[in-house]
Every structure is written in structure tokens, then in C-alpha cells.
């Protein structure tokens, strides 16, 4: 690698989500008070910060206020205060209000916003503080020296389908940094490799996920009040599955409808996109959108395991923040404000390390120490065994959760730490009786995956190697045999198509990588862990903007 393609910096942040931006802003603030040059840069794979961001989102603004004491948070685009809140249990055609609202689930004082829009706004503030954001650039490959992480390569471009350079080939850029901050969101592609290499999840629970599939609808005024939020349990899921729906009134004419499905489901034919389509047919939801128009579609994973699923948060020369580590508290389904707080403590640790010219894991352990002293840690600690209650049956789950609340989050396990199993281990061999009956989409309120994908705005350069890697074709065939190819169902963008057995040729999977919306479900849920998601060319992928 010639020096022509080398960049050096103090701190390299991978991902301009709320975590990466909060880290950089706080780091810049700390440096600003001292006589050290500010050298922090962010790589973001989306064409602009916010384009790959997808959340609910009902947000607790407290930690953002701590990050930006001088800024009026009313300036966040399209923000509105929560005015009304319901939790409903849905049967196929009815809805019942839940008799008891746990206090931790209350959203009084919180705000509804589009996280994508907020990230765009936050990115502007970061740049004003001297943070360099390079959008349209993915961190592609880790660089190690003497067994330690020293930087990241961006991806090459101008490659053909086989990966051979074409006439427009551009080599990777090598970015060397004293500290790399992994803020890639759920199931980070580089984070995953670091966790494996340094064995960072030893003695921890595996991370578990829910896939949130979401649509934004334009509706006539009066269909759903601005500032109203509705969470639902039940339909279309049975009691054996974890998940639920949400409906948020973003403004007078825009409503957000989403459905989250725990990826620990066992029926390989289950389809999270379809769950959202069925959800919209429930009278309670159908009424809201009957005269509406779909304007946006997307899907993304939520790391739900809680603090027992955190990997070790730091090691020599790097730290893991945000959803890449799993700063999400269930049951309130909140990650943004926790990620911001953790990012601030990580920034403090990075600042001390750069100042002392010592970026060893001992020095960076300050990050976890500081976070453990915050109220946000207590919030996560209280919920530490929540997701574990709901691994078998919804009703049993509530019972366990009741015990959890009484025992201060401890639950009934002996060491106070309930176990979890990785999502991919939950698939059971296809049972004919559990095949889902085909669903008819009316293209007015329900859409098939191809139609929905159009509304994600996703696009990929067609001339590039496929970014969905299948390690073994034989394993793929075994999976079709045993599970009837769950990938064709779990992928919310129809990237995987099962081509049936024909003329003596066995059934096989055909890939449509251009459809991909970067949710990473394939990487998580594939029962044989035979699929690896790689970043495609920079700026490729969904164009969410307001999700």
C-alpha cells in the first residue's frame, strides 16, 4: 500500500448514528478545553448521515440535553411531545387495554421524532465543532499490527462481480488511528470480527435481536393524533412468539407504523415483513390508514439482550458503543438516550487516553467504570433480566416479569443472571402444518416485499461483487432440505429467492443483493451461520431520510 492512500488520525469512529455522533461531539468538547489538536473522523456508509438510520422513535431527551447544554432541543426537526399513550392487547379482531402499566414503560415527558432527521441535524452540529464526517464510505476491513487493532481499510471500488479490478478501479484507503470507536449499530460487521478475535463475549449471554419492520404513512388529518403513541401485544403473533407493534403520531398527517418480531422464533417459515402487513389488517390499525398513502418503508434490528449480552466494551485501541454493544433497555424499548450517555463516557475515556498517550485496555476501561456510575446504567441494570422472561410463552413471560419487578430485576435464577440462547439456534425443522398460508396484498394498505422495497429508496451499484456472502453451497442445500430456506422468509427485502427444484436440478437460492436494506437479519438468523453481510460500495443502500 503506497503512502498515497494512507490517512492518520487520533480517533476513528465507524458509524454516524446517534452513538458515533454523540461520541464525536463530546470528544470535541473535551479537546476544545485543552491544548490538543482535534483529530477525530467518522466513516458512515450511508450517502449522508441519517440515510441508514431507522428507529421508532420515542425518545427520552435527557442525555441529549447533557450532551448539548447550549443547544435548544426544540430545533430538532419534526419533534413532538408525547400527549397520549395506550398499551393494547390485540386478538384477531378485538383490542383490550392492559390493566396495568409498569412505570418503566411510561413515556410521559418523552418526545416522538424521526431519528434519521435527528441524526442529520446532529451531524451538522458535529461538523460545526470540527468533527470530520465522511459519508458514503464504509469501514470494510480491520488492520492489525502485533495483534492489536491499528486502523481500518475502506472498501475498494470498481470491481467486477468476481472481485477483479475494472478500468475504474479505486484502491482502498488505509485509515490509521490510535483509537477506533465501533458505532456501527446492531450486528456491526467490523464489531463482530473484533468480538470473535478477542473473545469479547466469553461468559456473557449471546446478543439477541428483534427485527423492526416499519412504514411511514401520510394520512388525512384526524386519522391519528399528533403526539399519540400506541403499543400493542398479541396479534398477529401467537403466545409462543415475542414481539409487538407500535403506532406513533409524528405530526397531524404522518403516522409511523411498525412491528417488531423477536428473532428467537422457531418456525422457519415465519416472515417479519408479513407480520407487519397482517398487523395493518387488524381493525384497530386498518382504521387509521384506510385513506392513507404509504410513503416510506424500512427494517432494522434491535439488540435486546440487555447488559448481560454486552461484549467486553473495550480492548487495546478500541471501544464498542451504541447498538453495536447493545445499550438498549427493554421493556421501554429505548436505546437512543442510553447510547448517547455511553458514548459520552467513552469520549471521556478516549480523551484521557489521548492526553496520556496510552490507549491500552487498562486505560480505556475508564469507559465502563464511568458508565456504571450513571443513572442510565441503573436503568439498564433494572431491566437486565427482562428479555430472558419472554423466551418461551407470553403469559408465562408476564408472570416471570412480575416476579422480576418484585425482586428488583433479579428474577428467580440462582446467580441473578438468566440465560439466553442465540437467535439462530431456535429454528426447528420445517413442519408442514406450520407453513403459512399465502397472503394476498391489495397494494393499497398491504404490500408485497418488492413493492415495499421500492419505498425504502434502496439502490446498489450493479457492477460489484455480491455483498451477501454464502460460505458453503452445500450447507445452503442442507438448509433448504431441513428448514425449507428460512432466508426467503426472514429477509424483509426479498434478497433471497428460492428457485424450486426443476429438471433434475436441485432447489437453490438466488440472490438479489441490490434489494438489500442493510438490516443484517441474514447474518443473525441464518440457522447455519452460513451468511455473512459485508458492506457494499459506499453510499449504496437505503435512502431512509425520515425513518
Amino acid at each position, binding site marked *: 500500500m503506497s503512502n*498515497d*492512500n494512507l*490517512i492518520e488520525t487520533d480517533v476513528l469512529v465507524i458509524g454516524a448514528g446517534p452513538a458515533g455522533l454523540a461520541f464525536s461531539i463530546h470528544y470535541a468538547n473535551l479537546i476544545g478545553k485543552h491544548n490538543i489538536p482535534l483529530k477525530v473522523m467518522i*466513516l458512515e456508509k450511508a450517502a449522508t448521515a441519517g440515510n441508514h438510520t431507522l428507529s421508532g422513535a420515542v425518545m427520552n431527551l435527557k442525555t441529549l440535553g447533557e450532551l448539548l447544554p447550549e443547544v435548544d432541543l426544540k430545533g430538532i426537526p419534526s419533534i413532538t411531545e408525547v400527549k397520549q399513550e395506550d398499551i393494547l392487547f390485540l386478538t384477531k379482531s378485538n383490542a383490550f387495554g392492559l390493566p396495568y402499566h409498569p412505570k418503566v414503560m411510561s413515556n410521559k415527558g418523552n418526545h416522538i421524532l424521526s431519528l434519521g432527521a435527528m441524526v442529520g441535524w446532529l451531524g451538522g452540529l458535529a461538523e460545526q465543532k470540527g468533527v*470530520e464526517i*465522511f459519508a*458514503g*464510505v464504509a469501514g470494510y476491513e480491520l488492520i492489525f499490527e502485533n495483534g492489536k487493532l491499528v486502523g481500518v481499510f*475502506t472498501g475498494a*471500488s*470498481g470491481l467486477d462481480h468476481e472481485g477483479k479490478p*475494472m*478500468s*475504474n*478501479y*479505486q*484502491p*482502498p*484507503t488505509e*485509515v490509521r488511528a490510535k483509537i477506533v470507536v465501533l458505532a456501527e449499530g446492531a450486528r456491526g460487521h467490523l464489531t463482530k470480527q473484533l468480538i470473535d478475535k478477542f473473545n469479547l463475549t466469553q461468559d456473557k449471554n449471546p446478543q439477541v435481536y428483534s427485527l423492526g419492520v416499519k412504514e411511514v404513512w401520510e394520512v388525512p388529518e384526524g386519522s391519528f393524533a399528533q403526539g399519540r403513541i400506541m403499543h400493542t401485544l398479541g396479534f398477529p403473533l401467537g403466545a409462543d412468539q415475542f414481539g409487538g407493534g407500535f403506532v406513533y403520531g409524528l405530526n397531524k398527517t404522518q403516522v409511523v407504523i411498525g412491528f417488531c418480531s423477536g428473532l428467537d422464533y422457531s418456525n422457519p417459515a415465519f416472515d417479519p415483513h408479513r407480520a407487519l402487513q397482517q398487523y395493518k389488517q387488524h381493525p384497530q390499525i386498518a382504521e387509521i390508514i384506510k385513506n392513507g398513502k404509504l410513503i416510506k418503508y424500512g427494517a432494522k434490528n434491535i439488540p435486546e439482550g440487555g447488559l448481560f449480552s454486552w461484549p467486553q466494551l473495550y480492548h487495546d485501541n478500541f471501544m464498542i458503543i451504541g447498538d453495536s454493544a447493545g445499550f438498549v433497555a427493554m421493556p421501554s424499548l429505548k436505546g437512543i438516550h442510553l447510547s448517547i450517555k455511553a458514548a459520552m463516557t467513552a469520549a471521556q475515556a478516549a480523551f484521557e487516553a489521548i492526553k496520556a498517550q496510552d490507549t491500552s485496555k487498562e486505560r480505556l476501561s475508564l469507559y465502563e467504570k464511568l458508565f456504571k456510575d450513571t443513572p442510565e446504567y441503573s436503568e439498564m441494570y433494572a431491566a437486565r433480566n427482562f428479555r430472558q422472561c419472554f423466551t418461551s410463552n407470553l403469559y408465562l413471560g408476564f408472570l416471570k416479569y412480575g416476579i422480576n419487578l418484585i425482586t428488583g430485576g433479579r428474577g428467580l435464577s440462582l446467580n441473578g443472571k438468566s440465560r439466553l440462547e442465540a437467535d439462530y439456534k431456535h429454528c426447528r425443522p420445517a413442519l408442514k402444518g406450520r407453513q403459512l398460508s399465502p397472503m394476498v396484498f391489495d397494494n393499497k394498505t398491504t404490500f408485497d416485499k418488492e413493492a415495499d422495497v421500492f419505498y425504502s*429508496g434502496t*439502490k446498489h*451499484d450493479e*457492477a460489484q461483487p455480491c455483498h451477501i456472502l454464502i460460505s458453503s453451497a452445500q450447507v445452503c442445500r442442507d438448509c433448504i432440505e431441513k428448514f425449507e430456506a428460512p432466508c426467503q422468509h426472514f429477509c424483509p427485502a426479498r434478497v433471497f429467492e428460492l428457485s424450486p427444484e426443476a429438471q433434475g436440478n436441485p432447489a437453490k437460492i438466488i440472490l438479489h443483493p441490490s434489494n438489500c436494506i442493510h438490516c443484517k437479519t441474514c447474518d443473525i438468523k441464518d440457522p447455519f451461520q452460513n451468511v455473512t453481510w459485508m458492506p457494499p*460500495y*459506499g*453510499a449504496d443502500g437505503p*435512502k431512509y431520510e425520515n425513518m
Partner: protein
Amino acid sequence: MNIIVCIKQVPDTADIKIDPVAKRLLREGIKSMINPFDMYAIEEGLRLKEKLGGKVTALTMGPPQAESALREAVSLGCDEAILISDGAFTGSDTLATSYALSCAIKKIKDYDMIFCGKQSLDGDTAHVGPGIAGHLNIPQIVNVRKIQDIKEGRVTAHRMTEYGYDVLEAELPCLLTVVKDINVPRLPSLKGKMKAKSTAITVWKAADIQAEENRIGAKGSATEVWKVTTSPARPQGKIFEGEGAVDQLVLTLKGLMK
């Protein structure tokens, strides 16, 4: 080999929204991009530079926001970027635009080749490239799909025609407009994006390029826009179905040929 590439900033087609009532282009919040043909012009300039040495200068006339198009050009590998921007240019048609660009090019002075796109996405006239060559009084080859050779101060290029291509030779300095067959444009590298952030963009006003006042803007324009209309929606195509569809189709086509 010193090369100038003329680029135009146009509305992002993926982003275009039409006001359903007024039937007009909604301009607020619309993102911009480099005119697609100009991406090929930039790429060809960069490839020649990589082969023959020299530098590539990106040039545009437009409002101050056009700076972002120039920064993108730098991120791809252009060495310098010049924006000509002045209230006095407002209302320029293709004659005035090409005059203004030619004044800027005269000021740059030291150049061997000028590249333009074949035509723009929005204006669509394909006037500006030939216009510049006219004002500068230098040879031009339009719709170039391949540069065959550059030697001894001459360029040989393939000009795409409806039926194939012509092989033309011209003396340098020369202006070429390019079509999409000429190459596959590169994507910017991180190093390039970094350079784009720090490169200073030169801004010239009308006076800086000694553009005559009555040859630019509305005053210098030979065209006058009388009326702007949207073209009527195309009627839906006829679908022939069922038995006898082919016969019916043939009959209809015969009827149309009369």
C-alpha cells in the same frame, strides 16, 4: 496535458417531485447532482491525466451552491475547481452561458483539451460545448465515444453517429463532448473526499473574467422564453387480449400505416 472539464449541477432525478396541482417542478429541498454525462467527461479527463500527466480543472457556472458539484469533482481526482458565479449571469441562455464559460477558459489560458458532457439533463440542448468551442475559435468533436490517440499535438477520436461512428482528427487545443460509452466513471475514494473538504474553490465574478456586460445574463441571451408548458400525459396504450388479439393488432397497425 492540461485539461478543463465543464460540469453543470442539475436536480437529482431520483428526487424530482411534481406539484400535482400546479403541475410544476417542486424545487424546494430538491437535491442536486453533477449532470450524468459530465461524470464521464470528468473520468475521461482523469484517465488522460493519469496517462499523460498534467492537471484537470473542473469549471462550472452556477449559483453559490454549485460549489458542492465542484467538491465532488475534486473528490474524484480533479486538481483545481473554479466557480463562475455572479448575479449578472442570471437569465443566461446557452449562448450567454457558453460565452461566459469561454471567458473563464481564456483566463485559465493554459489548456490542451476541454471536455463537456454531450448534453445536460435539464436544459437538454447540447449547445454549450459547441458554443464554447465557437467562442474560443478552436476545433471540436462532439458525441465522442472513444479517444483513439493523442500525439504530436493532434487528437483522434470516434464520434458516435446514429449508424456507427466517424473517426475524426483535430488539432489541440480542442473541445470534446462525450457520450456514456466512453468509459465507466469511478467512485470517489476516502482520500479524494478528504481532499475535497480542504481544497479551496476559486470563485470568479463577471468582472474577473472580463465578460462583456451585454453578452451575459438576460441581456446577452438570444432566446426569449415565451411560455412554459408541461407536455400532456401520454394516453394509455391499447391492450389487445384474448383470441384474435394478433389479428386485431395487425389490422390496427395497417390502419396506422395508411
